[in-house]
Every structure is written in C-alpha cells, then in structure tokens.
C-alpha cells in the first residue's frame, strides 16, 4: 500500500518529492516533510479549516495535525478520500487526537517513529501478489520483529516501495537482472540480486555506526550528528561498557582523533594530561570539562564514575567550543551521565577483579658488575680502587624486587537501577573501586566509592524538572614521588648500590654505627633495614622509607549536582534554568615518625602529626531560551542564554609535634601538647567569577546546507576593568552533497563537507588579581642597628590585561561508503595570540617586578582521520575503528624574550633541559650534540680550531666529541641546540571488535610516534649511583664503543653532565591497552536464571608495548615534559569480570 502513497505523491507533486521521500526514509528527516505539508496547508486550506465551522475533510484535518505537531502521515489516498470530520478542536495528547480522528472512519494507525504515522484500515488483510511481483517480509535480525516503512528500491532506478505496518512489501515488474536494495533508518542497507524467486525475506542488521542519526550533545543543547558542521568527536557508553576504564581521561586515550592523553604516572588514581589539538598555550592547555552542564574545574574530573557515563563529546574546533567562550581555547569535553528508560525497569551489576604488575623493569647492574664499574670510574678519576674483589659480591640486592608488586589487586563493582514511566525516569548507581599500586603498594593505594541519582519528571506537559546528583569519596595513599630523581622508592631502587643488603642480620653490624646510635627503621623481626654506605643524598632503603610513610593518605569528598527546570510556554519554545553546585572537601593526614634512613634523610627531632582540611565551592547558574521553527525547508534553532559562575575555597590545617605515638595508627590530635608544638596554617583561594551572555543560531536548509553562528560575551574577574568582557564569535557551515539530486550513485552513501572559524579565549592562564598591583613587604632599611620593614608595590597594574585568544579554522568531511565504512577527516589551523608572559618594562619606571602582558603567540596545525568499518552477518560480526592525528606545534612569538627557559632543570646539570623559542615546538629539548667518541689521543689532538688550538682541551680518549655548532673553536654553552621534541606529533588508536554467536572479542591499542624521551634516571651528582646495563657497553679502549663514553667520577669532559642527545631515545610506542574475550549466556539459560542478560569476560590491560624505549614506560608525559626520572609505570593487569542485567 505504501507504494500507492508514493505513487500518489508522485502524481500530485513534482519529481523532487520522490527524492525527498527517499531521503526521509534513508535519513529520517521528518521535520522537513512536515514543513512541506505545512506549505500547502498554509496556502489556502488552513484558512478554510478555520472558516468552516462544522465539518472539514479528514485529509485537511490530518494536514492540520501535521502542521501543528510537526508530524507526517503516510496513507493510501483512497482510504481517506471523501471522509469528513468535525472541525472542532480535539483534545488530549497527540496520539489521543489521532485516534479520535481516525476511529469513526474505521481506520487505525501505527508509527514508524514518533513523528511518522502510517494510517491503514482496521481490518486490512494481506496484499494480493501479482504475477511477476516480488514480495516478502523485512525483519530486524536481532529481535525478529517486522519493520514497517523499510524502503525497497530497484537499484539504479527510481522504482520502489516500502513495507507496510506488518513489515510486508510487494514490488511489481521486477526483472531478472535487477538488484533490490533494502534500506531503513538505523539499519545497514542490504542488497539482494533478483533471480526469479517470488519471495525475498530480509533480516536487516541494526547499524551501530551511522553518520547522521546519532544525537550529539553540544553546549547547552543537542544536535543531530548530521546537522553538525563543527568538529566533534564522541565516545559512547557502549565503548566504555565493553572496555571499562578507571578515569574519564583513560576513556579519551586513543579513541578520538586530535585528542592526546598522556598519563603522568601509573600510580592508582593519577590524572593524565589531556591535550586537544596540541598544546594551545604556554600557560594552561587543559580542556574545559562540563558534566551535565556543570563546569568541573577545581579538583579535576577524577570523581566521575566511568560506569555512569552515557556519552562524551569532545568539542575540538573553535566554532563548536565557542559557546563556552573564555574557557574554551583548549577544547571542551562534554560528559552526559546516564538516565533511565521511560518504559522498562532495569537493574545491572558489573564487576571485575584483577591482578596487576609491572610490564617491564629496568636492567640494572648486579653487585659484581657494579663493583667493577665503580672501580673503573674511580681509577679514571685518579682515585684508588673502591672494591678490591668485585667477584665476591655476586648478584647482590635487586632493589626493584623490593618495591614492585607483581600481584597487586584491583577490584571494581558497579550496581545501577534505572527505569521510569511515561512522565518520569530515573537512574541510580553505586560504584566501588579499589586499586593497589604496583610500586610500593603499602603507600600506593586508591579507593573510590561513588553514588549517583539522576532523574527527570514531567510535572506537567509543559514543565519538566530534572536533577543529577553524585557523591564520590576517594581515599588515596600516594606518598611516593612518581617521577622524581630526588628520592622515593622508585629513584632509590634505581640509584642504590646492589651491594647494600635489604636487611642487616649480622649482630656486630647491628651493634655498630649507624645502626646502634640512630633511630633506624626495623622490620617486624627487629632487624634494621640496610643503609647504603656508598649511595647517599636523598636515596634510601625503599622498605625503610615505606615504613616512615605508612598510613598517610589524602582524601576528597566531591558532590556534584545540578537542578534544572524547563518550561514550554508555547510550542517549540523552551525556557530553562539550571543551577549547578560542586562543593568539595579534601585534605590529608600524615604522621612523620622519628627515623633515620641515611645521613641526609632523617628526622631525629620530634615526630609530628599533620592534618589539613580544605573545601571549595563552585556554583553556576545557567539560563537559556531555545526556540525551534521551520519554514519550508528552512529549519531554525535559536538559543540565547546567560551563565554565571563563582568559585571559592579555603584551607585550614595543623601540625602537632612530639605526640606520644610511634606510628600513624596511634597518632591523634587528642594528645595534649604544649602550644608551641601546635602549628596551625591555612589560607583562602582568591575568589574567581565569570558572567556570560551567549547566543546561537543553528540553521539548515533541508539538512543539506548547514549553518551555525555563535556569539559569547564573557566577563571574568581575572581581568582588568578595561577588558573585563570579551566577545567570542564563531561560524560554521556544512554541505551534504550526497543529498543533492545530482549526486551520482557511487560507492559513497553519504558525504558532508564542513568548515568553521571561531575565536575562543583562555582566562585560566592567569592567576587572580594579576591585573592589579599588590604590595609586598621586605623592602627594608636599617636605622641605628635595627631593621625596619618597608613595603612597596610589586609589578605595576596592567588594567588592559585580557585573555589569550585562540583563533581556529577547521575544514573536514564525514562520509559513509560501501555501506559499512565511515570516514571523518579534519584539517585545522589554530593560532593562539596574546599569551600571557611577564613583560619587561624599562627600569627607569622603578617598579619591583614586571607585569603580565599579552605578548606571545603560537600555532597548532594538524590533520585528523577517523575510519570505521562495521559489518554484521547472521551470527558473527566485525568492526574496526581507527584514528590517527598529526599536530605540529610552533611558537611564533615570545615577546622580547630570546627564549623561555624550561622550568625543569635536571639534577645537577648546569643547563636547562628544555627551551621554548620562536620556530620550535613548546619545551623542546635543548642541549649538546655528540659526534661519537674519541678513540685515541690522536683523535683528541686533531680536533682543532682554525688557530690550531684543541677544541676540547680537557678531553681524553673515551670522551664525547662535542659538535662545535657556532664554530668558535671551543665548546661553550653557545654550542647547544634543539635536539628533540618531547611531544609526539603523531598519535593513533585502533579498536577491533568481533563477535561470533555468544562470544565477543575486543582489542584496543594506542600509540604515539615521533617524540623523544630524555632518560634522566641516574643521579649525576652521585658518582656511586648504580647504572643500567647499558653501561656495560661503555668505552674501555679504542674501538669498544662509539656511543657510550668512558666512566670517570670526575667526568672532566662533562660526558654525563652536559644535557645532550646521548640521553635522548625515540619515545614512539604502540601499546595494546585492552584485549578481552567475553561470553554472553544464551537467552534461554539466563532466563532460567531469572536474569535478562549475563556476560562474563577475561581481559588484559597494557598487555604489551612495542617501543624502542628502555625505561619502565614510554608514556612519560603530563608535567614531566618527556623527562623520565624513574616514572611510575602503568600496570599490566589481568582481569575477570561479569556484567549482569536483570
């Protein structure tokens, strides 16, 4: 019967409607159709409806409803022809109205989706089948339900039909060479060749990935993916359900193009550095996180239970992010949490348990090798042999063994309930997560408990109330430096000599110094932990160190909630007000006992017990008015709004000294100690507020031509009176050529090209009140013999201070082709201008300090590619998604500075390791270039300058030959250059998944390419520190090595003291992050058990890493700037888990 409708339409209207109808079926554009109807109704008939007070034709009445409700009726014209209805306004809901309208005529309806209704006779019987007619039933391959409204086309022609409400179809005049093409919204298109059979039954596979149908959360609203003209990448809850992650950051890693996530440490609960399209600013480049509309800035995103996440959208281009104005320069991550279904109740439980350990350890020297090399280095420096008989020491102590835990436990449990009815829905969950660290487990442990309640209530038809509230408690033991050469278990394990034993059991040693006369740490049996007599400074026995830190912890209580009220005073006008709050309470407790770890690391005075409690509060209030309307093919979506936000925090803490307690467990502030041994401290963060106005117009013409215009006006308390408000405009356009009539019928199913331009700000680079001048003391002078305190202003005020501005151009396309493939490509050029730096003002101003100014600039250019393939067959399926991105970061201006020195020097090196200057990426490695090793004295002597003088007069055979880059005939600080980039320009990720019957398999891998790592594991200022086995290949005589210099305690050529390419390694890696096998119980079996669905799985995380890097972990990022000082490695974890739905 539907074919009749199409025929009628064809008769009635022009050709383009055929196309339009096809378009509707292909892409589900219902609104457009309604507008089409509206056009005709409004012309003449609508007026008549109003005039004719008594009756009106049923056809007109239906058209009236189509206009009013933005719906479409599909029907065979004969069944409504000549039928009359009362012109009186019907009451009730839409569906009630339709029912009331149709029932008197013996008609009924069904719906394809909630905007498209099919009208048929109540007693409709099967369609008769003509002689050369093909007929059949189209069903859903998973549920076996019939599908109404499926479009069937003879390929290459315009002949076609659709299935009726029972999923049946009948297509006449099919020729033997014809191919039938079955397509339906949300399903994969199938093609079947006709070879004479009369019946073709088709089971369509639901399509999991399809460009267009997906709903995308954008700032202050949603949009259909096909109408998006900016650059937005998404992660869905399905992705996360299949491969659970511990933190939101992890969910972003490797899954999205243009998003680089680098873990700063493998310690439980640590955050990662997230960079969207490169490093946007020399100051702050963290993206803005918005969870259910609430900006999460203080305390980070760690509170969020990943199981609660419904979807994550990353707004990458300026136009998409512009609605967040002054905080959007580094991109915006929008997170939506789950909500209940309005139809059925569901309870689900998921849990996994895992065992984890390190993937790789360092190859360090054993005691014998250590003694040999130490002797060599000592002798080379003109000192005597240190160890007379190296062989006697054997293997010695493996310090790494004492800190690594190969069976650290990780437990995750989640329970959620969701459901609802016609007018409300809810989702509630509780989660528990407990992870032991793989390094120094007793002092590396994270525990998290989270609760959430989300609900929505339609109070009346026009008033909706909703709330999301979550509470998370996190307790973290993390008293070890995770990437520091200055002590802590990791760097101690790397640097300590393997000769010192872990425990001292020899009575005579115990009874002599330093064990006999110091408060040394002992194990449970009372034996002291060994103290190295060779390696000093901050290095100490890791087991003893752990005892001094045992019990210390930090905690946080995070409450994040928002309440919103939405009214719809007139159709399509939504007025919404939303109040968000995020109070957080956090702090720590720590006990410092009296201890003696070494002559440097000791507390031989009083013990102390410290506690700190802080709280911070962010509240935000957002108001929006949203109106959608359509005119012909023109669709508009208008949004205006305001946003206000304030942030404050306080801290108070105290320390009690000399309490009568020996360890954390019996420490208490109930002990009374004298006033002078009670120290209090505290403070407040400076208040910070934002006030904003924004507006957006989304327009599309027939979903073919897309336009979005955004304007945000943002006020920030961080800026001076002259620039308190800034304006951030953006525009994006899109075109869907595949929707054009002229678009050829090729392998391309869908194509959209997009472009956008916009300006975002970054007010988070600046501290509070830096636009004003503050007064400091300490400008003292002496009168008589006493010092008097003087006070004067610091840097002068700069009331014209404003935000860093990032301008971004984006161009790209989305395509699906060959039915099963999808492709997204983006190119962008991002310019950050007016970056804040201190500006040197002339000293005749006489100021004490330099004010901040908007002076520096940088650019990021890049391309991004996301490719997907998804194919589902009878009982197996396969999908691949892959992404890759390239980003080039270049500093283009740093004001009057020649360069900015990297804030992080390495240990005792005289030179900074990184430098930022024009023409280079931010924080590039800076140092000397080596040119092999002098093999003989003759080579040293022949390395001369134009005057015939030795370029390296201090060098000996076995030393590096440094490149004299400036050609001045000597090696000076001027011979340094840019030797590497700590930030990978290439990042990529790949997701494979496959299923066969009840089994599923998933593999997820991620990697980077093109960066360098500076391996600064060994302490340069401790000559006796242990070496990695690389040192076994050192230069020992002509021809022995051209890359690893001789060992000498004095190192007169600074082979090790100079930062150079010697320390750099290729940091590229590819890591199999997740590999898992799952098994879903057959439906019959799970039903017998009284559950809806059950799945069990085994999973490996960080299973293998392909890299040339020899440290613990090539993922050295975050605040580390690519410098490995002994980073806490990511754990390799093996897990078993279960997901159950009731």
């Amino acid at each position: 019967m539907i074919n009749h409708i199409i025929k009628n339409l064809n008769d009635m209207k022009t050709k383009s409607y055929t196309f339009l109808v096809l378009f509707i079926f292909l892409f589900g554009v219902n609104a457009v159709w309604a507008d089409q109807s509206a056009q005709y109704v409004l012309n003449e008939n609508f007026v008549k409806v109003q005039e004719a007070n008594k009756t009106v034709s049923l056809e007109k009445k239906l058209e009236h409803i189509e206009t009013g409700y933005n719906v479409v009726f599909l029907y065979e014209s004969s069944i409504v022809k000549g039928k009359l209805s009362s012109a009186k306004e019907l009451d009730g809901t839409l569906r009630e109205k339709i029912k009331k309208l149709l029932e008197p005529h013996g008609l009924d309806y069904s719906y394809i989706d909630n905007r498209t209704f099919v009208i048929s006779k109540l007693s409709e019987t099967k369609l008769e089948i003509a002689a050369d007619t093909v007929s059949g039933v189209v069903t859903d391959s998973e549920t076996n339900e019939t599908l109404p409204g499926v479009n069937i086309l003879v390929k290459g022609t315009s002949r076609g039909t659709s299935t009726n409400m029972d999923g049946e179809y009948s297509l006449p005049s099919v020729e033997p060479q014809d191919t039938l093409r079955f397509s339906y919204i949300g399903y994969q298109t199938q093609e079947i060749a006709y070879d004479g059979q009369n019946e073709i039954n088709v089971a369509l596979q639901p399509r999991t990935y399809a460009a267009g149908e997906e709903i995308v959360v954008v700032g202050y609203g949603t949009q259909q993916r096909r109408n998006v003209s900016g650059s937005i990448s998404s992660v869905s809850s399905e992705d996360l359900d299949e491969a659970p992650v511990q933190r939101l950051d992890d969910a972003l890693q490797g899954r999205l193009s243009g998003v680089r996530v680098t873990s700063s440490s493998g310690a439980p609960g640590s955050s990662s550095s997230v960079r969207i399209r490169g490093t946007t600013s020399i100051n702050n480049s963290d993206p803005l996180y918005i969870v259910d509309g609430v900006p999460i800035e203080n305390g980070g995103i760690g509170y969020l239970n990943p199981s609660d996440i419904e979807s994550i959208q990353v707004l990458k281009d300026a136009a998409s992010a512009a609605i967040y104005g002054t905080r959007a320069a580094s991109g915006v991550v929008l997170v939506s949490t789950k909500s209940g279904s309005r139809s059925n109740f569901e309870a689900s439980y998921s849990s996994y348990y895992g065992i984890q350990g390190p993937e790789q350890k360092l190859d360090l020297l054993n005691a014998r090798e250590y003694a040999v090399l130490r002797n060599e280095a000592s002798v080379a420096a003109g000192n005597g042999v240190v160890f007379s008989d190296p062989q006697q020491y054997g293997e010695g102590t493996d310090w790494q063994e004492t800190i690594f835990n190969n069976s650290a436990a990780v437990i995750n449990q989640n329970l959620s309930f969701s459901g609802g009815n016609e007018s409300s829905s809810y989702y509630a969950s509780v989660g528990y997560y407990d992870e032991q660290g793989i390094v120094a487990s007793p002092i590396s442990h994270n525990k998290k408990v989270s609760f959430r309640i989300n609900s929505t209530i339609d109070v009346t038809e026009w008033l909706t109330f909703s709330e999301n509230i979550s509470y998370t408690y996190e307790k973290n033991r993390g008293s070890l430096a995770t990437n520091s050469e200055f002590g802590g278990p990791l760097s101690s394990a790397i640097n300590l000599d393997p000769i010192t034993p872990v425990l001292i059991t020899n009575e005579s040693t115990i009874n002599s110094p330093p064990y006999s006369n110091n408060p040394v740490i002992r194990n449970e049996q009372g034996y002291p932990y060994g103290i190295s007599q060779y390696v000093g400074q901050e290095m100490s026995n890791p087991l003893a160190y752990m005892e001094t830190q045992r019990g210390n912890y930090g905690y946080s209580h995070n409450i994040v909630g928002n309440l919103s009220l939405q009214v719809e005073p007139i159709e399509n006008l939504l007025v919404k007000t939303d109040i968000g709050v995020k109070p957080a309470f956090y702090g720590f407790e720590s006990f410092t006992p009296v201890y003696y770890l070494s002559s440097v690391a000791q507390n031989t005075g009083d013990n102390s017990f410290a506690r700190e409690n802080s709280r911070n509060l962010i509240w935000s209030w957002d108001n929006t008015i949203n109106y959608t309307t359509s005119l012909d093919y023109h669709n508009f979506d208008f949004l205006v709004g305001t946003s206000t936000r304030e942030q404050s925090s306080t801290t108070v803490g105290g320390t009690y000294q000399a309490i009568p307690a020996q360890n954390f467990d019996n420490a208490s502030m109930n002990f009374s100690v004298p006033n002078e041994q009670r120290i209090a401290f505290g403070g407040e963060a400076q208040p910070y507020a934002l006030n904003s106005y924004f507006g957006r117009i989304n327009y599309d013409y027939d979903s073919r031509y897309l336009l979005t215009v955004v304007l945000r006006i943002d006020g920030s308390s961080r800026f001076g009176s002259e620039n308190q408000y800034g304006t951030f405009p953006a525009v994006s356009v899109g075109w869907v050529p595949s929707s054009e009539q002229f678009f050829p019928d090729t392998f391309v199913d869908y194509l959209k090209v997009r472009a956008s331009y916009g300006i975002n700000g970054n007010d988070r680079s600046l501290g509070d009140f830096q636009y004003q001048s503050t007064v400091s003391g300490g400008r003292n002078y002496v009168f008589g013999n006493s010092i008097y305190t003087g006070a004067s202003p610091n840097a002068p005020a700069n009331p014209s201070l404003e935000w860093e501005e990032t301008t971004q151009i984006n161009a790209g396309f989305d395509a699906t082709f060959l039915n099963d493939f999808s492709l997204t490509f983006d190119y962008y050029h991002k310019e950050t201008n007016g970056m804040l730096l201190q500006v040197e003002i002339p000293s005749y101003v006489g100021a004490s300090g330099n004010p901040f100014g908007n002076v520096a600039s940088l650019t990021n250019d890049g391309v991004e590619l996301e490719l997907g393939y998804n194919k589902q067959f009878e009982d197996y399926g396969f999908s691949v998604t892959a992404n890759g991105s390239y980003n080039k970061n270049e500093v283009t201006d740093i004001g009057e500075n020649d360069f900015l020195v990297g804030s992080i020097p390495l240990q005792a090196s005289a030179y900074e390791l990184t430098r930022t200057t024009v023409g280079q990426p931010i924080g590039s490695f800076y140092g000397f270039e080596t040119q092999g090793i002098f093999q003989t004295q003759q080579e040293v002597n022949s390395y001369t300058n134009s005057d015939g003088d030795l370029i390296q007069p201090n060098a000996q055979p076995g030393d590096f030959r440094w490149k004299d880059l400036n050609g001045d005939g000597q090696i000076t600080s001027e011979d340094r250059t840019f030797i590497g980039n700590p930030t990978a320009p290439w990042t990529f990720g790949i997701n494979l998944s496959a299923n066969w019957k009840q089994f599923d398999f998933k593999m997820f891998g991620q990697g980077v390419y093109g960066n360098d790592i500076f391996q600064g594991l060994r302490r340069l200022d401790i000559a006796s520190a242990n070496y990695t086995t690389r040192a076994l290949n050192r230069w020992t005589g002509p021809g022995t090595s051209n890359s690893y210099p001789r060992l000498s305690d004095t190192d007169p050529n600074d082979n090790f003291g100079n930062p150079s390419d010697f320390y750099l390694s290729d940091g590229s890696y590819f890591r199999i992050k997740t590999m898992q096998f799952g098994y879903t119980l057959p439906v019959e079996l799970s039903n017998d058990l009284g559950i809806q669905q059950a799945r069990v799985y085994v999973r490996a995380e960080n299973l293998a890493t392909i890299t040339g890097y020899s440290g613990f972990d090539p993922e050295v990022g975050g605040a580390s700037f690519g410098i490995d000082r002994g980073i806490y490695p990511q754990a390799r974890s093996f897990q078993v888990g279960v997901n159950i739905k009731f």
Partner: protein
Amino acid sequence: MMKSLLTYLMCLAVVVSFASCDNVLDVEPKGQQLESNYYQTPDQAYAALVAAYNPIGWQTGGPDGTWIPLLGPLNAATAGMNAGGGGPNDIPTIQAWNSYDMSSAVGPQAGYWSRSYAGINRANLFLARIDGVQGLDEATKARYVAEARFLRGYYYFWLVRLFRNVPLYTSPLETSEIYEIEQAPPEDVYAQIDEDFTAAIADLPAAPLPSNEAGRATKGAARAFLAKSLMYEIGDSQDQEKMGRAANLLNQVNTSTAYALLDNYPDIFRADNKFHSESIFEITHTSKQQADWPNFGSGNIQGNVYVQMVGPRGYSGPKYASGYGFNPITSVLVDALQGDPRYGYTIANIDSIASNNSSASYEPSPHQNTGYFIEKYAPLQENRADVITPELNYPNNYIEVRLAETYLLEAEAILRSNGSIARAEFLVDEVRDRVGLGPVTSPVTLEDVYQEMWLELATEGHRWFNLVRTGRAADVLADEGFVEGVHEVLPIPLESLNNSQLEQNNGYD
C-alpha cells in the same frame, strides 16, 4: 493559570539574570594588599617611607641583578685602583669601567640606574599618596614628606651625575606614559634636586637623631647634598652666585655644633663606630640582614658584600678574612699616600703582611693584583658575622658624606667664589691637623684642596666624581682610557633604550 504564572516567573528569573549578574565580577582579594587600597594608616605610611630608603643599601640591581656595590665600579674607574677580582670576566660591570670599554649592554650602568629609579618610584608614590593617610599628625607628616623629597633629590643627584640625560618625573608614571617619557635637560633635573632638598631642609630634623633613627635624613645631610649638587652642576664653569650658595650651605653644616671631626682617623671607618659626629649621611647595614646566595641579587635584599669583595683573594692569616680581591690599589695611590699618616689606614699591604707573618698565606689573583688592598672597608675577622652566609652580611656602613669632605668642599667653594681665604685655609688645616699633618702653604690653592680631598677621602667613592666635576678627568685618567666628551657619563642601560624614547649618551653604542 498555573502555567502562565510559572512561565511568567521563570521568564522573569531569566530576564533578571540577564541584567543583574554583572556584579559577581567585583571580587575583592583576600589576604593581599592592593596598591589601590594601601597607604591608609600611619604604619603603612612609615613602611612606604622605609621602602623609599631601601634602595640606598642595594648592592645589586637592574633587570639582570647586576652587582653594584656602589663603590666598586667607581673606585675601579679611577687610576688609583684596579677592578681586580678572580679574572678579567669577574663581574664585567666593574671590569668594563676599569678599562673604559663600556657599551649599552656592558658596564655598571644598569645597577646604578635601577637603584635610583626604584627609590624615585617609591618616593613619588609616597608623596602622591601621603595625603590619603588617616591619623598621621602634622609634624610627623611634614617630616615624612621632607624625607621623601630628600630621597628623591638624593636619587636624582646620583642619576644626573652618572648619566646627565635622564627621564625626570615627580609623580608615579602612568602605564600610558612609560614608553612616552623623554630625557629631561640636565638643568631641569638639577632644578628639581634643588627644589626637593630646599623643601627637605625646612622640615627635616637637625642632627643628632635618636639612636633608633640614626641613618634617616637630617637638615645637615640635605644641605650637604644640595651643595654637592650645586657644585656638580657648576662643574668647572664660573657661577659665583651658585658657588656662593654652595659655600653658604656647606658653612651651615660645618659650623653646626652637631658635627665634629673625630680625633682618631681610623675610628671613622670602624664597623662598631657608626653615626659618629663626623658622619653626615651613611649607607646603613647590619649583620642581621640575613642575605644569602639564593636571595642576593633580587634587588630588595640588602646584603653587604663589598667588604668581602675588597678582601685579599686566597688570603689566610690574621686580621683579615679571605676576600675576592677587588679594587686592588695601584701605585698611583700608593705613591701619593707614601709618608702620609693616613697610609696605613687607607691601604692594606697584604704582600708585606703575608711575607712578614709565618701564619699567613696568600695566593693572589693573577688578575690586576697589586698586593695592596682597601683598608677602610677591609673584611676584618672581627667584623665577620656569626651567620650562615657571613660574606654577604658584613655589618659595615659606608659614610657617603662626612665632615672632612664638607670642610674641603667649603674650602673649594670659597676659593671659587672669592670668599675668605683664611676660612678656606682653616678648613684644610683642620683636616690635616687631625692626622698630624702641618698646615698647607699659604695661600691655599685649589690644587691643594683637590689633593687633600683625594688623599683624605681615598677609596670612599668621591675621586671619580671630583675629577669629572672639576674638568681634570681627561688628564688624570687618560692612561685609563678616559675619552673626553664621552666618559664623563655612563651609557644609558640597553634595556631602557628598547622601545622607549630615550637616546643613548654621546659616544656610546
């Protein structure tokens, strides 16, 4: 009804929020004092005044933290002393003036320049804001204002002497003015100095001050500096009227009962004998300033390192601590003082001490060492403070103006303004008599006065100014590299030329 009411309320709320949230941006800082609301109380006013004194004691300064112990470069600029130190690159600011090869980038200018302008900025700010201070009695306020004007005059005097062409401003510079201001004609600067000191003289207290105020400005100090400023402005030209004013001002100081020459010459410089009757204005220090290496160089911290710097390098023995070997004294001054009673109190002959004392050892620096070092500020073991970084915390003060100088200046002013020769002879003879020298040959000549100034005040930082002021520098310093028409002033510091309207002084690049 319900619907329309709620809708109305919500729309109202939205509209209200559009209009009213502006004020959330008006936040007040916590626990931080802003310049805009400082300068309210008498305590704050006093702290602001102390801050204006603070740069006087600086021994470092400038954007690069240049080491400028005031006397170091000035002494090295004369023929009587070398730069010294550990080598030709040890403190280039001092070495450059010693060899007269200064440029915009290299030389001591940045330190002197920023020291003075920091003081001017603070004095200007103080004067601009003092009227807003509540609860300050009129007498105190008048004294504070006079001190601030004294300080401004003091700092501009240093600037105009060293640079001649300098930006002149007497209220805090607005942001918009920073890059617009130009150098003022020197006569305008002198006029401002005159005005400031004249105003200061009226309201400053007369010496002596109570011991807890010693070091603050006095009428006598203001008169002495104004006289010195007048005489520097006159230079080697003839301006009887101005010179007469200078003579008069100096006479008022020299005849004040508050001041008297000390009987014993070396007592003048003793670290435990400060603010004595011969001292008119001192640069003050104590050993309790807690300077250490990390904070030294940050400008505002007043360590005192010059004492350490002039100590003999590599010396171990009685009396002196080992120093850095700067400003070794050349034969020019050694010869001039030969036979003078002041020789031993001016020059430490380390060579002879080391060779005559078996318990002393000495490894002199190979760079410009002469074996003779400054005695007046020498790092005596007894002065070395019992603090963590004693080398930065010597307690010695530096007397910037003392009575012997004002005696001799008055003598000069008298001779150059046709005053009483008898009075001039009396003044010179007083200075000579104190150390046991006989009277000068009558009638006393200008040359006699100049010679006496040199020897009496040797190593105290006056020699270079006096040579330039009286037009003798080109002769006396010819061998040092002094070029007439160029080296009377220092180059303007490079960083102050960038983006500004300032022009470099003649002869410098």
